[in-house]
Protein backbone atom coordinates (compact mmCIF):
# COMPACT_ATOMS: atom_id res chain seq x y z
CA UNK A 1 0.00 0.00 0.00
CA UNK A 2 2.73 2.45 1.04
CA UNK A 3 4.80 1.41 -1.96
CA UNK A 4 1.85 2.15 -4.28
CA UNK A 5 1.34 5.53 -2.66
CA UNK A 6 5.04 6.33 -3.10
CA UNK A 7 4.85 5.41 -6.78
CA UNK A 8 1.76 7.60 -7.25
CA UNK A 9 3.49 10.57 -5.57
CA UNK A 10 6.50 9.98 -7.84
CA UNK A 11 4.25 9.99 -10.93
CA UNK A 12 2.36 13.11 -9.83
CA UNK A 13 5.65 14.87 -9.10
CA UNK A 14 6.91 14.04 -12.62
CA UNK A 15 3.68 15.32 -14.17
CA UNK A 16 3.74 18.57 -12.17
CA UNK A 17 7.35 19.29 -13.17
CA UNK A 18 6.41 18.56 -16.78
CA UNK A 19 3.45 20.99 -16.48
CA UNK A 20 5.68 23.71 -15.05
CA UNK A 21 8.30 23.21 -17.76
CA UNK A 22 5.76 23.39 -20.57
CA UNK A 23 4.10 26.45 -18.94
CA UNK A 24 7.47 28.18 -18.72
CA UNK A 25 8.07 27.44 -22.38
CA UNK A 26 4.78 29.12 -23.24
CA UNK A 27 4.29 31.80 -20.62
CA UNK A 28 1.35 33.52 -22.34
CA UNK A 29 -0.76 30.35 -22.15
CA UNK A 30 0.63 29.14 -18.84
CA UNK A 31 1.05 31.09 -15.60
CA UNK A 32 0.64 34.43 -17.36
CA UNK A 33 -2.93 33.75 -18.36
CA UNK A 34 -4.01 32.50 -14.92
CA UNK A 35 -2.68 35.67 -13.24
CA UNK A 36 -4.12 37.96 -15.91
CA UNK A 37 -7.53 36.25 -15.69
CA UNK A 38 -7.64 36.57 -11.91
CA UNK A 39 -6.51 40.21 -11.93
CA UNK A 40 -9.12 41.04 -14.56
CA UNK A 41 -11.93 39.40 -12.57
CA UNK A 42 -10.73 41.08 -9.41
CA UNK A 43 -10.55 44.53 -11.04
CA UNK A 44 -14.06 44.20 -12.51
CA UNK A 45 -15.58 43.21 -9.20
CA UNK A 46 -13.65 45.89 -7.33
CA UNK A 47 -15.11 48.58 -9.60
CA UNK A 48 -18.60 47.16 -9.08
CA UNK A 49 -18.17 46.90 -5.34
CA UNK A 50 -16.77 50.42 -5.03
CA UNK A 51 -19.68 51.77 -7.12
CA UNK A 52 -22.22 50.35 -4.68
CA UNK A 53 -20.18 51.13 -1.57
CA UNK A 54 -22.35 51.90 1.38
CA UNK A 55 -25.15 49.53 0.40
CA UNK A 56 -25.03 46.77 2.96
CA UNK A 57 -21.26 46.67 3.54
CA UNK A 58 -19.96 45.29 6.83
CA UNK A 59 -18.75 47.99 9.21
CA UNK A 60 -15.01 47.68 9.80
CA UNK A 61 -14.46 45.42 6.76
CA UNK A 62 -12.44 47.05 3.98
CA UNK A 63 -13.78 46.48 0.44
CA UNK A 64 -10.60 45.32 -1.29
CA UNK A 65 -9.64 42.78 1.37
CA UNK A 66 -13.25 41.59 1.49
CA UNK A 67 -13.16 40.86 -2.24
CA UNK A 68 -9.72 39.20 -2.18
CA UNK A 69 -10.79 36.92 0.69
CA UNK A 70 -13.75 35.57 -1.29
CA UNK A 71 -12.93 35.95 -4.94
CA UNK A 72 -9.60 34.13 -5.25
CA UNK A 73 -10.79 30.91 -3.53
CA UNK A 74 -13.91 30.99 -5.72
CA UNK A 75 -11.84 31.53 -8.89
CA UNK A 76 -9.66 28.61 -7.86
CA UNK A 77 -12.73 26.44 -7.35
CA UNK A 78 -14.17 27.35 -10.75
CA UNK A 79 -10.77 26.65 -12.40
CA UNK A 80 -10.22 23.34 -10.65
CA UNK A 81 -13.66 21.90 -11.36
CA UNK A 82 -12.91 22.11 -15.11
CA UNK A 83 -9.60 20.31 -14.69
CA UNK A 84 -10.45 16.58 -14.71
CA UNK A 85 -12.01 16.61 -18.16
CA UNK A 86 -9.40 18.96 -19.65
CA UNK A 87 -6.43 17.23 -18.04
CA UNK A 88 -7.42 13.90 -19.56
CA UNK A 89 -8.06 15.35 -22.99
CA UNK A 90 -4.73 17.19 -22.89
CA UNK A 91 -2.81 14.27 -21.44
CA UNK A 92 -4.17 11.53 -23.72
CA UNK A 93 -0.67 10.82 -25.06
CA UNK A 94 0.61 10.32 -21.51
CA UNK A 95 -2.01 7.66 -20.84
CA UNK A 96 -0.09 5.46 -23.26
CA UNK A 97 2.61 5.17 -20.58
CA UNK A 98 1.77 2.28 -18.23
CA UNK A 99 2.76 4.33 -15.15
CA UNK A 100 0.26 7.14 -15.78
CA UNK A 101 -3.43 6.86 -14.93
CA UNK A 102 -6.28 9.32 -15.46
CA UNK A 103 -6.34 10.04 -11.74
CA UNK A 104 -2.63 10.96 -11.80
CA UNK A 105 -3.26 13.47 -14.58
CA UNK A 106 -6.17 14.99 -12.65
CA UNK A 107 -4.27 15.19 -9.36
CA UNK A 108 -1.20 16.71 -11.00
CA UNK A 109 -3.14 19.35 -12.93
CA UNK A 110 -5.28 20.20 -9.88
CA UNK A 111 -2.26 20.52 -7.63
CA UNK A 112 -0.52 22.72 -10.20
CA UNK A 113 -3.55 25.06 -10.39
CA UNK A 114 -3.84 25.03 -6.60
CA UNK A 115 -0.21 26.16 -6.30
CA UNK A 116 -0.71 28.99 -8.82
CA UNK A 117 -3.82 30.26 -7.01
CA UNK A 118 -2.15 29.95 -3.62
CA UNK A 119 0.64 32.25 -4.81
CA UNK A 120 -1.95 34.62 -6.27
CA UNK A 121 -3.98 34.57 -3.03
CA UNK A 122 -0.98 35.38 -0.86
CA UNK A 123 0.26 38.16 -3.17
CA UNK A 124 -3.17 39.79 -3.48
CA UNK A 125 -3.94 39.43 0.24
CA UNK A 126 -0.69 41.20 1.14
CA UNK A 127 -1.37 43.94 -1.44
CA UNK A 128 -4.95 44.36 -0.19
CA UNK A 129 -3.81 44.53 3.45
CA UNK A 130 -1.29 47.24 2.58
CA UNK A 131 -3.86 49.17 0.53
CA UNK A 132 -6.61 48.94 3.16
CA UNK A 133 -4.26 49.27 6.10
CA UNK A 134 -5.85 46.13 7.59
CA UNK A 135 -3.88 43.98 10.02
CA UNK A 136 -3.31 40.25 10.24
CA UNK A 137 -6.37 37.94 9.80
CA UNK A 138 -8.11 36.71 12.94
CA UNK A 139 -7.58 32.96 12.35
CA UNK A 140 -5.01 32.29 9.54
CA UNK A 141 -4.99 28.50 9.96
CA UNK A 142 -8.74 28.41 9.41
CA UNK A 143 -8.29 30.42 6.19
CA UNK A 144 -5.61 28.02 4.94
CA UNK A 145 -7.80 24.99 5.68
CA UNK A 146 -10.83 26.57 4.00
CA UNK A 147 -8.77 27.50 0.94
CA UNK A 148 -7.57 23.89 0.79
CA UNK A 149 -11.11 22.53 1.18
CA UNK A 150 -12.27 24.76 -1.69
CA UNK A 151 -9.62 23.13 -3.92
CA UNK A 152 -10.64 19.61 -2.86
CA UNK A 153 -14.33 20.33 -3.44
CA UNK A 154 -13.50 21.73 -6.90
CA UNK A 155 -11.57 18.60 -7.82
CA UNK A 156 -14.28 16.31 -6.46
CA UNK A 157 -17.01 18.13 -8.38
CA UNK A 158 -14.82 17.97 -11.51
CA UNK A 159 -14.38 14.19 -11.10
CA UNK A 160 -18.11 13.64 -10.65
CA UNK A 161 -18.92 15.88 -13.60
CA UNK A 162 -16.36 14.21 -15.84
CA UNK A 163 -17.92 10.81 -15.30
CA UNK A 164 -21.49 12.12 -15.56
CA UNK A 165 -20.64 13.91 -18.82
CA UNK A 166 -19.25 10.66 -20.24
CA UNK A 167 -22.46 8.87 -19.33
CA UNK A 168 -24.79 11.72 -20.27
CA UNK A 169 -23.25 14.58 -22.27
CA UNK A 170 -25.61 17.45 -21.23
CA UNK A 171 -24.88 16.85 -17.52
CA UNK A 172 -22.16 19.51 -17.60
CA UNK A 173 -24.62 22.14 -18.81
CA UNK A 174 -26.54 21.99 -15.52
CA UNK A 175 -23.43 22.82 -13.53
CA UNK A 176 -22.47 25.61 -15.96
CA UNK A 177 -25.94 27.04 -15.38
CA UNK A 178 -25.42 26.87 -11.61
CA UNK A 179 -21.95 28.42 -11.85
CA UNK A 180 -23.37 31.51 -13.58
CA UNK A 181 -25.27 32.41 -10.41
CA UNK A 182 -22.77 30.83 -8.09
CA UNK A 183 -20.75 34.01 -7.62
CA UNK A 184 -23.78 35.78 -6.17
CA UNK A 185 -25.38 32.98 -4.18
CA UNK A 186 -22.03 31.77 -2.82
CA UNK A 187 -21.28 35.02 -1.05
CA UNK A 188 -18.32 36.00 -3.23
CA UNK A 189 -19.48 39.59 -3.73
CA UNK A 190 -22.03 39.98 -0.95
CA UNK A 191 -22.13 38.37 2.47
CA UNK A 192 -25.20 36.34 3.38
CA UNK A 193 -26.57 39.07 5.67
CA UNK A 194 -27.38 41.06 2.54
CA UNK A 195 -29.98 38.46 1.55
CA UNK A 196 -33.39 38.19 3.25
CA UNK A 197 -33.19 35.88 6.25
CA UNK A 198 -36.15 33.88 4.90
CA UNK A 199 -34.01 32.41 2.10
CA UNK A 200 -30.97 31.59 4.25
CA UNK A 201 -32.09 27.99 4.88
CA UNK A 202 -32.17 27.40 1.09
CA UNK A 203 -28.87 29.17 0.45
CA UNK A 204 -27.31 27.16 3.25
CA UNK A 205 -27.42 24.01 1.10
CA UNK A 206 -24.57 25.48 -0.94
CA UNK A 207 -21.24 24.43 0.66
CA UNK A 208 -19.40 27.20 -1.21
CA UNK A 209 -21.43 29.78 0.72
CA UNK A 210 -20.32 28.18 3.98
CA UNK A 211 -16.67 28.38 2.91
CA UNK A 212 -17.00 32.03 1.86
CA UNK A 213 -18.83 32.98 5.04
CA UNK A 214 -16.29 31.22 7.24
CA UNK A 215 -13.42 32.81 5.31
CA UNK A 216 -14.80 36.27 6.16
CA UNK A 217 -15.44 35.27 9.76
CA UNK A 218 -11.87 33.97 10.17
CA UNK A 219 -10.42 37.00 8.40
CA UNK A 220 -12.28 39.97 9.91
CA UNK A 221 -12.71 40.75 13.59
CA UNK A 222 -16.01 42.56 13.06
CA UNK A 223 -17.91 39.85 11.15
CA UNK A 224 -19.55 36.70 12.50
CA UNK A 225 -21.37 34.50 10.02
CA UNK A 226 -24.94 33.59 10.92
CA UNK A 227 -24.95 30.33 8.92
CA UNK A 228 -21.37 29.16 8.16
CA UNK A 229 -20.65 25.71 9.55
CA UNK A 230 -17.20 24.07 9.45
CA UNK A 231 -18.82 20.66 10.02
CA UNK A 232 -20.98 21.04 6.91
CA UNK A 233 -17.92 22.02 4.85
CA UNK A 234 -16.01 18.94 6.03
CA UNK A 235 -19.00 16.67 5.39
CA UNK A 236 -19.52 18.01 1.86
CA UNK A 237 -15.81 17.89 1.05
CA UNK A 238 -15.35 14.30 2.21
CA UNK A 239 -18.66 13.15 0.75
CA UNK A 240 -18.00 14.66 -2.68
CA UNK A 241 -14.41 13.40 -2.76
CA UNK A 242 -15.44 9.88 -1.75
CA UNK A 243 -18.19 9.75 -4.36
CA UNK A 244 -15.92 11.26 -7.06
CA UNK A 245 -13.10 8.77 -6.42
CA UNK A 246 -15.56 5.90 -6.20
CA UNK A 247 -17.11 6.48 -9.62
CA UNK A 248 -13.72 7.31 -11.14
CA UNK A 249 -12.42 3.95 -9.94
CA UNK A 250 -15.50 2.22 -11.29
CA UNK A 251 -15.36 3.64 -14.81
CA UNK A 252 -11.55 3.85 -15.14
CA UNK A 253 -10.59 2.96 -18.71
CA UNK A 254 -14.11 1.60 -19.31
CA UNK A 255 -15.59 4.73 -20.83
CA UNK A 256 -13.78 6.72 -23.51
CA UNK A 257 -13.06 10.42 -22.75
CA UNK A 258 -15.97 12.58 -23.88
Amino acid at each position, binding site marked *: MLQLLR*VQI*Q*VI*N*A*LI*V*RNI*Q*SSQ*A*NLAMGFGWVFFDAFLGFAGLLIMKLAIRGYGGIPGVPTVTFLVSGLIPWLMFSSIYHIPDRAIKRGK*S*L*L*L*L*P*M*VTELDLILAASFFTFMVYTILFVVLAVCAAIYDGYGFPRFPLGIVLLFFSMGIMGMALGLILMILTRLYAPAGKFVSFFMRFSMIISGVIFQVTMFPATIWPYLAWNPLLHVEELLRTYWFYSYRTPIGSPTYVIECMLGMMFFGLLIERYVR*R*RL*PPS
Partner: protein
Amino acid sequence: MPATHPGAEGPLFDGLNVEVGDGARVGVLGGPKSGKTTLLRLICGTMTAHEGMIERNSRVSWPIPMATFLVPSSSVAQNIGFISRLYGVRDKAFSRRVAQMMDITAFLECPLEKCPRFVKPRLALALGIALEFDMYLFDGTLAAADKPFKEKAAEIVAGRVAGRGYVLASAAPAEVEKNCGSVYVLEAGRAAYFADAKEGTEYFKTLLAAEKQKRQLADQEAKRSVDNDDDEDAAPGDMDVLAAAIADEVE
Protein backbone atom coordinates in the same frame (compact mmCIF):
# COMPACT_ATOMS: atom_id res chain seq x y z
CA MET B 1 -9.98 -12.17 -24.46
CA PRO B 2 -12.19 -9.82 -26.48
CA ALA B 3 -11.01 -6.23 -27.01
CA THR B 4 -12.25 -3.46 -29.21
CA HIS B 5 -10.09 -1.30 -31.44
CA PRO B 6 -10.65 2.40 -30.58
CA GLY B 7 -13.30 3.69 -32.96
CA ALA B 8 -14.20 0.24 -34.32
CA GLU B 9 -17.70 -1.15 -34.05
CA GLY B 10 -17.07 -4.86 -33.42
CA PRO B 11 -14.50 -6.59 -31.24
CA LEU B 12 -10.95 -6.63 -32.56
CA PHE B 13 -9.99 -9.80 -30.73
CA ASP B 14 -12.24 -12.65 -29.82
CA GLY B 15 -10.95 -15.70 -28.02
CA LEU B 16 -7.38 -14.42 -28.10
CA ASN B 17 -4.93 -16.34 -25.94
CA VAL B 18 -1.33 -15.17 -25.72
CA GLU B 19 1.34 -16.17 -23.24
CA VAL B 20 4.82 -14.69 -23.01
CA GLY B 21 7.22 -16.42 -20.63
CA ASP B 22 10.23 -14.96 -18.80
CA GLY B 23 13.07 -14.17 -21.18
CA ALA B 24 11.04 -15.29 -24.21
CA ARG B 25 11.54 -13.54 -27.53
CA VAL B 26 8.15 -13.50 -29.09
CA GLY B 27 7.12 -12.11 -32.43
CA VAL B 28 3.61 -10.93 -33.27
CA LEU B 29 2.91 -10.87 -36.98
CA GLY B 30 -0.14 -9.27 -38.49
CA GLY B 31 -1.25 -7.17 -41.39
CA PRO B 32 -2.35 -3.54 -41.15
CA LYS B 33 -5.18 -2.96 -38.62
CA SER B 34 -4.87 -6.51 -37.33
CA GLY B 35 -4.39 -5.23 -33.76
CA LYS B 36 -0.64 -5.50 -33.19
CA THR B 37 -0.35 -2.17 -31.35
CA THR B 38 -3.59 -2.80 -29.45
CA LEU B 39 -2.20 -6.15 -28.29
CA LEU B 40 0.97 -4.43 -27.04
CA ARG B 41 -1.16 -1.88 -25.17
CA LEU B 42 -3.15 -4.66 -23.59
CA ILE B 43 0.05 -6.38 -22.52
CA CYS B 44 1.54 -3.25 -20.94
CA GLY B 45 -1.74 -2.30 -19.26
CA THR B 46 -2.64 0.98 -20.93
CA MET B 47 -5.77 -0.65 -22.37
CA THR B 48 -8.16 -3.07 -20.74
CA ALA B 49 -10.02 -5.91 -22.42
CA HIS B 50 -13.78 -5.97 -22.09
CA GLU B 51 -13.67 -9.56 -20.93
CA GLY B 52 -11.04 -12.07 -19.92
CA MET B 53 -7.87 -11.56 -17.95
CA ILE B 54 -4.43 -10.10 -18.45
CA GLU B 55 -1.85 -11.24 -15.93
CA ARG B 56 1.51 -9.51 -15.58
CA ASN B 57 4.21 -10.80 -13.29
CA SER B 58 7.05 -8.60 -14.40
CA ARG B 59 7.94 -5.01 -15.25
CA VAL B 60 6.83 -4.32 -18.80
CA SER B 61 7.89 -1.38 -20.96
CA TRP B 62 5.59 0.76 -23.07
CA PRO B 63 5.47 0.03 -26.83
CA ILE B 64 8.89 1.27 -28.02
CA PRO B 65 9.59 3.65 -29.84
CA MET B 66 6.51 5.59 -28.73
CA ALA B 67 7.24 9.32 -28.84
CA THR B 68 3.82 10.85 -28.16
CA PHE B 69 4.72 11.86 -24.60
CA LEU B 70 7.69 13.97 -25.68
CA VAL B 71 7.10 17.74 -25.31
CA PRO B 72 8.40 19.56 -28.41
CA SER B 73 8.94 22.87 -26.60
CA SER B 74 10.97 21.23 -23.81
CA SER B 75 14.63 20.39 -24.16
CA VAL B 76 15.95 16.87 -24.72
CA ALA B 77 17.23 16.85 -21.12
CA GLN B 78 13.83 17.92 -19.76
CA ASN B 79 12.12 15.16 -21.71
CA ILE B 80 14.57 12.61 -20.36
CA GLY B 81 14.08 14.12 -16.89
CA PHE B 82 10.33 13.50 -17.11
CA ILE B 83 10.78 9.79 -17.75
CA SER B 84 13.46 9.46 -15.08
CA ARG B 85 11.21 11.16 -12.49
CA LEU B 86 8.24 9.06 -13.62
CA TYR B 87 10.13 5.81 -13.08
CA GLY B 88 11.98 7.04 -9.98
CA VAL B 89 15.49 6.95 -11.45
CA ARG B 90 17.79 8.61 -8.93
CA ASP B 91 20.94 8.52 -11.07
CA LYS B 92 21.88 12.14 -11.86
CA ALA B 93 23.90 11.07 -14.89
CA PHE B 94 20.87 9.36 -16.43
CA SER B 95 20.16 12.14 -18.96
CA ARG B 96 23.73 12.19 -20.18
CA ARG B 97 23.86 8.40 -20.34
CA VAL B 98 20.69 8.22 -22.43
CA ALA B 99 21.94 10.93 -24.78
CA GLN B 100 25.36 9.28 -25.11
CA MET B 101 23.74 5.98 -25.96
CA MET B 102 22.23 7.48 -29.10
CA ASP B 103 24.91 10.10 -29.91
CA ILE B 104 22.65 13.08 -29.18
CA THR B 105 24.63 14.63 -26.31
CA ALA B 106 25.16 17.82 -28.33
CA PHE B 107 21.39 18.45 -28.32
CA LEU B 108 20.74 17.89 -24.60
CA GLU B 109 19.82 21.50 -23.88
CA CYS B 110 18.15 22.11 -27.23
CA PRO B 111 14.31 22.28 -27.41
CA LEU B 112 13.17 19.13 -29.17
CA GLU B 113 11.32 21.06 -31.88
CA LYS B 114 14.56 22.82 -32.86
CA CYS B 115 16.69 19.67 -32.99
CA PRO B 116 17.52 17.89 -36.27
CA ARG B 117 14.89 15.36 -37.34
CA PHE B 118 16.88 12.29 -36.33
CA VAL B 119 16.95 13.30 -32.65
CA LYS B 120 13.31 12.54 -31.82
CA PRO B 121 13.23 8.88 -32.97
CA ARG B 122 16.63 8.23 -31.40
CA LEU B 123 15.44 9.79 -28.12
CA ALA B 124 12.22 7.76 -28.18
CA LEU B 125 14.20 4.55 -28.67
CA ALA B 126 16.80 5.48 -26.07
CA LEU B 127 14.20 6.29 -23.40
CA GLY B 128 12.47 2.97 -23.96
CA ILE B 129 15.55 0.83 -23.61
CA ALA B 130 17.44 2.91 -21.03
CA LEU B 131 15.11 1.85 -18.23
CA GLU B 132 15.29 -1.55 -16.57
CA PHE B 133 12.33 -3.71 -17.61
CA ASP B 134 11.90 -7.46 -17.47
CA MET B 135 10.13 -7.36 -20.78
CA TYR B 136 10.41 -4.88 -23.61
CA LEU B 137 7.65 -4.28 -26.15
CA PHE B 138 8.69 -3.18 -29.63
CA ASP B 139 6.17 -1.82 -32.06
CA GLY B 140 7.10 -2.09 -35.74
CA THR B 141 10.82 -2.73 -35.54
CA LEU B 142 13.52 -3.44 -32.98
CA ALA B 143 15.80 -0.52 -33.78
CA ALA B 144 13.71 2.38 -35.04
CA ALA B 145 16.34 4.96 -35.93
CA ASP B 146 17.54 6.95 -38.90
CA LYS B 147 19.37 4.98 -41.61
CA PRO B 148 22.99 5.93 -40.79
CA PHE B 149 22.42 5.02 -37.15
CA LYS B 150 20.26 1.94 -37.64
CA GLU B 151 23.09 -0.57 -37.37
CA LYS B 152 24.46 0.95 -34.19
CA ALA B 153 20.95 1.21 -32.75
CA ALA B 154 20.39 -2.48 -33.47
CA GLU B 155 23.63 -3.32 -31.61
CA ILE B 156 22.60 -1.20 -28.61
CA VAL B 157 19.14 -2.76 -28.47
CA ALA B 158 20.61 -6.26 -28.76
CA GLY B 159 22.96 -5.54 -25.86
CA ARG B 160 20.15 -4.08 -23.78
CA VAL B 161 17.66 -6.89 -24.23
CA ALA B 162 20.23 -9.65 -23.70
CA GLY B 163 18.87 -12.00 -21.04
CA ARG B 164 15.49 -10.29 -20.99
CA GLY B 165 12.28 -11.04 -22.82
CA TYR B 166 10.67 -9.01 -25.51
CA VAL B 167 7.69 -8.92 -27.81
CA LEU B 168 8.19 -7.62 -31.31
CA ALA B 169 4.97 -6.72 -33.13
CA SER B 170 5.66 -6.27 -36.81
CA ALA B 171 4.39 -6.75 -40.33
CA ALA B 172 7.88 -7.68 -41.54
CA PRO B 173 8.35 -11.47 -41.38
CA ALA B 174 12.10 -11.28 -42.07
CA GLU B 175 12.83 -9.21 -38.96
CA VAL B 176 10.64 -11.40 -36.78
CA GLU B 177 12.27 -14.57 -38.09
CA LYS B 178 15.72 -13.13 -37.42
CA ASN B 179 15.04 -11.89 -33.89
CA CYS B 180 12.32 -14.06 -32.37
CA GLY B 181 12.13 -17.62 -31.09
CA SER B 182 8.37 -18.09 -31.36
CA VAL B 183 5.62 -16.31 -33.23
CA TYR B 184 1.95 -15.44 -32.86
CA VAL B 185 0.20 -14.69 -36.14
CA LEU B 186 -2.84 -12.43 -35.76
CA GLU B 187 -5.63 -13.42 -38.07
CA ALA B 188 -9.30 -12.46 -37.86
CA GLY B 189 -9.19 -11.58 -34.16
CA ARG B 190 -7.37 -14.73 -33.11
CA ALA B 191 -3.71 -15.58 -32.61
CA ALA B 192 -2.15 -18.71 -34.09
CA TYR B 193 0.92 -19.81 -32.11
CA PHE B 194 4.08 -21.20 -33.72
CA ALA B 195 6.86 -22.43 -31.44
CA ASP B 196 9.22 -22.19 -34.40
CA ALA B 197 9.56 -18.64 -35.75
CA LYS B 198 10.37 -19.90 -39.26
CA GLU B 199 7.16 -21.89 -39.42
CA GLY B 200 5.16 -18.87 -38.22
CA THR B 201 6.69 -16.50 -40.72
CA GLU B 202 6.10 -19.01 -43.54
CA TYR B 203 2.45 -19.25 -42.50
CA PHE B 204 2.21 -15.45 -42.38
CA LYS B 205 3.76 -15.21 -45.87
CA THR B 206 1.16 -17.66 -47.14
CA LEU B 207 -1.56 -15.53 -45.59
CA LEU B 208 -0.09 -12.42 -47.17
CA ALA B 209 0.12 -14.13 -50.59
CA ALA B 210 -3.50 -15.29 -50.32
CA GLU B 211 -4.55 -11.80 -49.29
CA LYS B 212 -2.64 -10.32 -52.22
CA GLN B 213 -4.24 -12.78 -54.66
CA LYS B 214 -7.68 -12.00 -53.25
CA ARG B 215 -7.04 -8.29 -53.68
CA GLN B 216 -5.81 -8.79 -57.27
CA LEU B 217 -8.92 -10.80 -58.11
CA ALA B 218 -11.14 -8.12 -56.60
CA ASP B 219 -9.28 -5.45 -58.59
CA GLN B 220 -9.67 -7.43 -61.81
CA GLU B 221 -13.36 -7.92 -61.09
CA ALA B 222 -13.82 -4.21 -60.45
CA LYS B 223 -11.91 -3.36 -63.65
CA ARG B 224 -14.02 -5.78 -65.68
CA SER B 225 -17.27 -4.28 -64.42
CA VAL B 226 -15.98 -0.77 -65.29
CA ASP B 227 -15.09 -2.00 -68.83
CA ASN B 228 -18.59 -3.48 -69.22
CA ASP B 229 -20.13 -0.17 -68.19
CA ASP B 230 -17.96 1.61 -70.77
CA ASP B 231 -19.09 -0.87 -73.47
CA GLU B 232 -22.71 -0.23 -72.58
CA ASP B 233 -22.05 3.50 -72.86
CA ALA B 234 -20.42 2.92 -76.27
CA ALA B 235 -23.40 0.89 -77.64
CA PRO B 236 -25.63 3.02 -79.94
CA GLY B 237 -28.74 4.18 -78.17
CA ASP B 238 -32.14 5.02 -79.71
CA MET B 239 -31.19 8.64 -80.19
CA ASP B 240 -27.98 7.64 -82.03
CA VAL B 241 -29.95 5.39 -84.43
CA LEU B 242 -32.47 8.17 -85.03
CA ALA B 243 -29.69 10.70 -85.69
CA ALA B 244 -28.04 8.29 -88.20
CA ALA B 245 -31.40 7.80 -90.01
CA ILE B 246 -31.96 11.57 -90.25
CA ALA B 247 -28.44 12.01 -91.62
CA ASP B 248 -29.15 9.32 -94.30
CA GLU B 249 -32.41 11.11 -95.21
CA VAL B 250 -30.61 14.44 -95.58
CA GLU B 251 -27.99 12.87 -97.85
